[in-house]
């Protein structure tokens, strides 16, 4: 039974870009969690999660965003969610993620958002 999933991390200056591909469910979410934890352990608190190639997400995957957001914000960083397709937006909307998370159309705009925040003295990421 195919369950294609991959998570890749690329560091770009002081940002960590985590790209998800395939289905993020209770089986695969631990790999996503490990990737976020590794980025934080490496000193990155500005994290972009690229969901452009993510085909599905359940609450197990959404839980990873919830687990780390306070930790990175406490350190002056953020987790920005980008590239969500219409197919996977629904669970984020049902649970009200828009009120707590910064959504960007793509990785480029998420990087700009971080850069803009850094340019403002004392500005939040």
């Amino acid at each position: 039974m195919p369950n294609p999933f991959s998570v890749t991390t690329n560091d770009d200056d002081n940002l960590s870009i985590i790209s998800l591909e395939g289905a993020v469910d209770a089986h695969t979410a631990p790999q996503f969690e490990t990737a976020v934890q590794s980025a934080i352990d490496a000193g990155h608190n500005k994290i972009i999660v690229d969901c452009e190639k993510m085909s599905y997400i359940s609450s197990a995957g959404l839980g990873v965003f919830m687990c780390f957001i306070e930790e990175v914000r406490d350190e002056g960083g953020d987790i920005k969610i980008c590239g969500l397709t219409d197919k996977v937006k629904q669970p984020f909307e049902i649970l009200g993620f828009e009120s707590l998370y910064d959504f960007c159309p793509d990785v480029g705009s998420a990087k700009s958002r971080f850069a803009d925040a850094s340019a403002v003295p004392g500005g939040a990421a």
Partner: protein
Amino acid sequence: MEAIERKFMLKVPSSTENLALIREFVGSIAQQSGFDTSDIGKLELAIDEACANVIEHAYGHDISKEVIIRATLDDETLRIDVEDTGRGFDPKLIKQEELEQLVNKRRSGGLGMRLMKTLMDEVHYEIEPGKKNELHMVKKLRKT
């Protein structure tokens, strides 16, 4: 004339590895039944949440146990029943905390049931302590 029911069943070992198979089982039946893409997505997510709860909480990832999924289809509804013989719980004691509260507590759980209740038209549990637990969910077929 009485509606003809069609019944389908899937029995899988209690492992999260099988969640993709479970989603495909329910998604295929929903597609065959005429549900639109949006509702098929809702059904797949609801059954995933239901079975992930069983695998993780009722069975504690014990792969020797089985999760049984039954789908019953008639002209107007798709009913999905999930059966397990694991540790039961009182659904009334599950707190529906807001996202902000969960984030503040750095807790990532507690969202599955809220999703199921939003995605499906009916959701209810039948818990027989020490015997079996059943979750019943219904999705109405929207006529176009």
